[in-house]
């Protein structure tokens, strides 16, 4: 059949045999055998690896099954503070990290020159490489005692940072033209660094003085005396700050990709029709890249829920059901890390902790899948619109 079609397409084909050797000799049986075996091995290994990955889910479900026979209220009582702690830590981290990450993403995707962006983006993504145990150590042993002594300064700093950036903008608009050209908005991400350091130092200097004048004591004592709010050294605020630092890079990186890949003609068209950059961002860029930003936040949430060392080291690990940001918490992951090595296999605690691991697994897996699907759709939409 093949020969016949060849003869039809190349009428002279039979003569090649005479004139020259055929360009591709038929594979010898040994080579075919080798190929068959190798293909089989690769297939086996590939499927084996995929099965091993699947085994994680199967194992977790299998080990949780014994709980079905005697799941009592006691188990629920043990798990609910952990679930709350996990949620609380993740929410604290997201509240602190998402605005910063999205702001940074918007700036580097829409304002920076490509040259600068090529430097800044990898540096920010390197933040992700800092191991959790190092962040946890700095948060638990350096940041936490400092914040305890300077609670008012910390809160003032959190409020002041956005204000100081705005103030920089106002001053910039009032500045003479030469200065404005030297310090362009495009490179503001860099030259605002010393400005932030300087104004932060100013707040750190002023806050204790104001605190003494207005409250007569430091804020932690004041809160305790006036409102009866306890302050634990390693608390949710610290966890939020530390884990916020850890998830900023992943949220930033994905959101920045989504914003940067918006087809350029869309933004240019909007601005050509008279929209300001703000309007172009709000009416065109954000709705376009919305799904991408959503998936970035989801990935951040997945990371925050599962992070172990930071929560373990930066929180008091007391299983509490309180909403106060100044009290500690204990998350699923920290509970697993602390209790599982001690729990004998086949005990109730062992199965409960594996249930906690299953919850973490399912949650992160679902969230990531959702994010990935959304991201792929977005990529297809951009391609349809003729973008990158």
């Amino acid at each position, binding site marked *: 059949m093949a020969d016949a079609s060849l003869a039809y397409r190349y009428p002279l084909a039979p003569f090649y045999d005479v004139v020259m050797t055929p*360009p*591709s000799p*038929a*594979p010898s049986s040994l080579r*075919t055998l080798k*190929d068959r075996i190798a*293909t089989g*091995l690769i*297939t086996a*290994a*590939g499927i084996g*690896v995929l099965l091993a990955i699947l085994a*994680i889910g199967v*194992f977790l479900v299998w080990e949780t099954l014994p709980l079905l026979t005697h799941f009592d209220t006691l188990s629920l009582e043990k798990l609910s503070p952990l679930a709350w702690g996990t949620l609380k830590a993740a929410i604290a981290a997201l509240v602190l990290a998402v*605005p*910063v990450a*999205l702001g*940074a993403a918007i*700036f580097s995707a829409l304002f920076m020159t490509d040259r600068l962006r090529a430097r800044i983006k990898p540096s*920010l993504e*390197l*933040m992700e*490489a*800092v*191991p959790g145990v*190092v962040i946890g*150590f*700095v948060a*638990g*042993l350096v940041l936490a005692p400092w914040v305890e002594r300077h609670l008012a300064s910390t809160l003032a700093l959190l409020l002041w940072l956005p204000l*100081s*950036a*705005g103030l*920089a*903008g106002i001053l*910039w608009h009032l500045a003479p033209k030469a200065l404005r050209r030297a310090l362009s*908005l495009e490179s*503001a*991400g*860099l030259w*605002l*660094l010393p400005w*932030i350091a300087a104004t932060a130092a100013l707040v750190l200097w002023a806050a204790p003085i104001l605190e003494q004048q207005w409250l007569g004591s430091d804020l932690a004592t004041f809160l305790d005396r006036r409102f009866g709010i306890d302050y634990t050294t390693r608390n949710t605020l610290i966890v939020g700050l530390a884990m916020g*630092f850890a998830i900023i890079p992943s949220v930033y990186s994905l959101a920045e990709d989504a914003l940067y890949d918006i087809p350029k003609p869309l933004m240019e068209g909007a*601005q050509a029709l008279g929209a300001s950059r*703000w309007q172009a961002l709000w009416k065109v860029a954000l709705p376009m890249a919305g799904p991408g930003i959503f998936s970035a936040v989801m990935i951040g949430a997945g*990371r925050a829920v*599962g992070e*172990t060392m930071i929560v373990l*080291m930066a929180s008091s690990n007391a299983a509490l059901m309180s909403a106060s940001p100044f009290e500690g918490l204990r998350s699923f*992951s920290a509970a*697993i*890390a602390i209790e599982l*090595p001690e729990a004998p296999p086949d005990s109730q605690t062992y199965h409960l902790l594996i249930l906690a*691991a299953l919850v973490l*697994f399912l949650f*992160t*897996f679902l969230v990531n899948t959702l994010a*990935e*699907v959304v991201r792929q759709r977005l990529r297809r939409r951009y391609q349809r619109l003729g973008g990158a």
Partner: protein
Amino acid sequence: MSRTSHRRRWPGDALWAWLCAGCVALSLFMLATLLTLLTVKGLGHFWPATLEELTLRSGEQMIGQPLREAPMPTGSATERLYFTGNRELTGADWRWVGVDEIVSAATPADVIRLERSPWGDFIGRLIALELDGERLTGDSAFDRISQLLALPPSERSGELVLLSPSGRGLVQPLSGVNTFVAPNALSIGEKTAIWGQGVWRFLSEGPRAANTGGGVWPAIFGTLLMVILMSVIVTPFGVLAAVYLNEIAHQNRLTRLVRIGVRNLAGVPSIVYGVFGLGVFVYGVGGSLDQWFFDDALPSPTFGTGGLLWASLTLALLTLPVVIVATEEGLARIPDAQREGAVALGATRLEMLTRIVLPMATPAMLTGVILAVARAAGEVAPLMLVGVAKLAPQMPLDAEFPYLHLERKFMHLGYHLFDSAFHGDDVEAAIPLVYATALLLVLIVLVLNLTAIFLRHYLRRQRGES
């Protein structure tokens, strides 16, 4: 264009851009602060600090290294923390002194600092060196001591006659002395040399005195060995799985789903892998191995407890998605024409893979393995479940048959950091070394990541030009 429009719509419209710029600056600021903190504290610890001799208002004399100041709990006065050493004489290594209690402070050149075991540091003065009935003083004693300290501890003879700041004499055998410096008499060059020696000892020695002294060599070694074992496991399997997914499997809906699934596994919390490792490798496989081969040692487990092998396997599983994703990216970038050309010239699929496709994808694989190693080096949570130890008495690699002891527990930099920072007896004394460990860990991980970034960048440029 933007400048004029900014001015016209001033002020509300332009402000948000500044907020976003502030976010970039803030992120960079935090990263820079963290790295600076670790560098300064981590490397500063090894610098021979100046010792101050104080005369207090009560007439008492003391010598110490000033560390930091803090306001007194009551009133506006401040107090200063000194490291004074001499634990066996004063009962503590640290002392808070009110700043207004200090009558005079000086930095005499003859003050010395010893690091010894047991009892930690001694700070005071040297009276003489007693050696074979001889009594050396002054410079000749200093020279002789530095000669003797170069010998291993067991071969040293002689005793130091010391004078504590409060005027008590004591005798210290040279065999228990680790370092001997007179920091106030040193020039900058000598201090740098001592600093270098300190850094080297940190990298090359084992921990001493409950992690408050010595170095982290066993932890570096354990981390390295585990990471190497892990790469040996993860590289072939990761590459094979990627080749299967990209080159052999039919590209249909199922393959796409599997691909998304693998990608998402990279986002599953590491502790979940630890739970899997504990349940399946340690209790499951390890427990069975014990019953079959090591039942004479039961009930004390051999493989049925955490160890090097299980830790490497767990981390290999954890980093598998990283290698698969990176390799697949590399494979997908190879133009189909290359594959078709090879097959058209008569190569079998195996020959096409090994001679054309895999060599072209090698840099991508390497990137994946480097990223996997970087991730594994920084990961601590799963190791806490499957085999890390706070202080491993035996190295997992030694001269005893079978040389590589896969069942032994091992030390790991990240866990060492966690343990000495949170579970030590004297956390204050351990903190400087914890900073140094943290710096080392961050440096290792950052260098690995940078290598991967440059490799990938180089790869893209090469592809783009050709």
